[in-house]
């Protein structure tokens, strides 16, 4: 087996005595589509925060792409190849969809500093525009490119977040409940988009989700969190068949 792209070992996080995560370990392989599910308050978002650097875990280590990233801030982890979307949508105010993509591209290539801005101006180059339109096309956002991102529907807003994350050319994409607030139809579209993204870009995806049918459709492997502890891990179908998981999460009676 190849070395995992992301591995977290024994991650523990407490908030004022409440244990949010207890000794959680997980792995995501290159180009793997993995998912974390769990009831509300199970610690899914805290886990994401610990993996992406927003929170420092009290114990445990995170390795990414062959090196420890424990000391890195979120921005540094992003440059190392982690990109993410947010459960509560986080778009930039007063910017068009294309601007979102350009900003992310510039953040990655670090093109354009003070002197460039002042002396040569900062019009997007044709390379940059090509990269942006490739992503826009992949997600079906071309016709919204010039629209202010805030004026779009929630579903398209989430696609913009996804597009922005893709512009970072990540190795691993963290998706925080991409279906929350979407109706069935939009959720299906989101699922299609994610499958397209993964097959075309060949990146690994770690998904937090409530929507079990969506997870079943997308994820190869899944982890189940309950009260901050990992209660199951393995191939999606096997885990979903597990009696313990059915009790904790799917509300099955014993």
């Amino acid at each position: 087996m190849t070395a995992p792209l992301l591995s977290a070992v024994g991650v523990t996080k407490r908030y004022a005595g409440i244990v949010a995560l207890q000794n959680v370990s997980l792995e995501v392989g290159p180009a793997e589509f993995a998912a974390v599910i769990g009831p509300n308050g199970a610690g899914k978002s805290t886990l994401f925060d610990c993996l992406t650097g927003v929170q420092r875990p009290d114990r445990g280590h995170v390795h990414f792409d062959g090196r420890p990233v424990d000391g890195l801030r979120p921005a540094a982890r992003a440059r190392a190849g982690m990109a993410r979307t947010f459960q509560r949508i986080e778009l930039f105010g007063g910017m068009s969809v294309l601007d979102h993509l350009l900003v992310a591209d510039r953040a990655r290539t670090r093109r354009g500093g003070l002197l460039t801005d002042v002396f040569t101006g900062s019009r997007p180059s044709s390379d940059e525009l090509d990269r942006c339109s490739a992503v826009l096309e992949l997600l079906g956002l071309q016709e919204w490119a010039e629209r202010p991102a805030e004026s779009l529907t929630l579903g398209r807003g989430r696609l913009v977040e996804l597009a922005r994350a893709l512009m970072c050319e990540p190795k691993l994409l963290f998706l925080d409940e991409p279906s929350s607030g979407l109706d069935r139809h939009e959720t299906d579209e989101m699922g299609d988009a994610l499958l397209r993204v993964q097959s075309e870009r060949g990146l690994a995806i770690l998904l937090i989700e409530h929507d079990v049918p969506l997870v079943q459709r997308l994820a190869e492997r899944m982890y189940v969190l309950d009260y901050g502890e990992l209660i199951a891990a393995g191939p999606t179908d096997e885990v979903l068949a597990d009696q313990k998981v059915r009790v904790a999460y799917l509300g099955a009676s014993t």
Partner: protein
Amino acid sequence: MQLLEYAIRGVPTGCVFALLAVGLVLTYKTSGVFNLAFAGQAYVSAIVYYELRKELELPLVAAGVISILIVAPLIGLLLERVLFRYLRSAGSMAKLVTSLGLLIAIPEIAKLLFGSETRRNPPPLWWVRRTDEWLWPEGATFVLDAGQVATILSTVVVVIGLVVLFRATNLGLRMRAVVESPRLAELSGVDSERVSMAAWMLSSVLAGLAGVLVAPLFASLNPFDLFTLLVAALAATVFGGLTSIPLTFLGGILLGVLQAVLAGTLPTDSVLTNGLRPSLPFVVLFLLLLFRPGLRTTRELTDPLASVDAPPPPPAARARPPWIATSARVFGTVVSLIAVALCWFVLDSYWLGLAISGLVLSVTMMSLIVVVGMGGMLSLCQAALAAIGAFAMAQVVAGTGVPVVLGLVVGVVVAAAIGALLAIPVVRLDGVYLALATLAFALMFQSIFVPLSWVSGGAVPITVPRPVIGPLDLSDDRYFLVFVIVCAVATALVVIRLREGTTGRFLQALQTSDVAAASIGINGPRARVVAFTIAAGIAGFGGGLAAIDLGQASYEASFPYLIGLVWVALLVSAGARSIQAAVLSGLFFFLFPALLDKLFALPGNWVDTNPDAPSWVAGIADAIQPTWAQSVAFILFGIGAITYAKHPEGSIEAQTTASVNAIVRRVEARNDRHRVAAGAGGSAP
């Protein structure tokens, strides 16, 4: 024993700090407003008390009750009812700018109402003057005079009152509930509006009490001293984490004691300690903001219903159709050219001088565009950075004889370097804390560095000659005008390119979503440090130009920190991201008071030239006081800032957007009519 004496001497001052600080914390906790105008409220009560005691000669109790227990809570009630209740859900920046506007406007309104004459020797809130009649303890080697005892006693009364209020009354219980969570309190049937009203009245009483108590410490009443004292008291509020009232109290008293002990023990002959003593509270405030544990991790206190600061709407320039943009550009150019021609050919030296000063100020205003408008950081120390630029330039020019223009460059570099050093710790603070830290820096600079001769030249400002460029001697104001225009245009071009470029986009991303910006790899602290540094450099440039304009680098004349606060209020209300706003507010700052002055002089002039003028005109002429122009101008500047909550993009930007929309609507309506007419014509056989 000696030390104990010093410590006890510090207690009264500490009590005043504590009163001010607790009043601030009360309103901050219950309404999320960090009320800088508190000093203005204290000033009004002090004036009312002065007038009642000295002019109307009321007995002490009556004057005290009216000024502290009637006037003060009424002001608090007024502010809450007409202003702050509408800001409950506004962002912290809007609240802070509003209180800044009030800080500027309230003292001037008080001066209009009660007269602006100097009020010497403010009366104490005690029956005896500062004499030895009341020694405590009896026969001791150290004394507290009557005023100090009064201060301590009043503070004790306030402490007991607050404890009783919070622990034993229904209102106190509700206040505590609102502090914990306004939304939850409302859901359980607490009327948080009434609680917030009560908190504003109560905190205003504390402001009034502090104002009346502290007034006798100064030779004459003026709002600046009170505000400086308030900033000192801020150290206590930060000590209490902006939430804990007992800790805030303790912090205030500790601060007073520490100040007195240092005053007693530090050698008096050292320049450094001479500067350190008055500035101690600001140094403490600055250090506390940077290092107090828990401050950075506590979320800023706001209503849970409060949104984040509204994202800036796109500048009208980008939203408008191209044909309007083109015609607006042509129109703007023509107007500017006419204005320049007017300056060149028509204006006399008085108005030309004012126009030049306005343009010079607009360069400093552009530094605010970068740090406030683009960076989202409410820096309150741009005046200090401008002064640094001016001093560096003046020192280099005077010391080495390099050309003035080269000196300007040195000023920019020095200001930018100091700005960068300041920015590195400060940009990690959020909203209110950043504003307070920059304010503390401005006051540290004023009290420690400005008096030093290697900084400012000491008591006599360093003179700065006007440069001579080729055949042009810029001591001719008209040539200097052209020079300033070139400088302003160059600065504006740089700012525009940064705003529209990658730098501006990154900052905009950071301003609207910090977490999302980090998630795509934008290094937030670094981007903010860069913005702050550039702004500092531009401020240094503006400061250098101001010194050349005036002929000397004078802190008093050009850069007092309160004037800097007025600049912020002006620019932010005109439009924190707009060059147009920077230029207009710079010009406005100098021209508007002068125009008002001319206006107020009209009745007098008319009476002078027409002996048979009706007597009511003479009455008006007599009633108008020479300070009115400045007062009215500052009141309007302050009120302008209050509109920020409604138009965060600024009044100029809002106006532009509105008129562009109106034009577009009219054009579309006309096109529709044509189309309808054409359609009707086509369908008729």
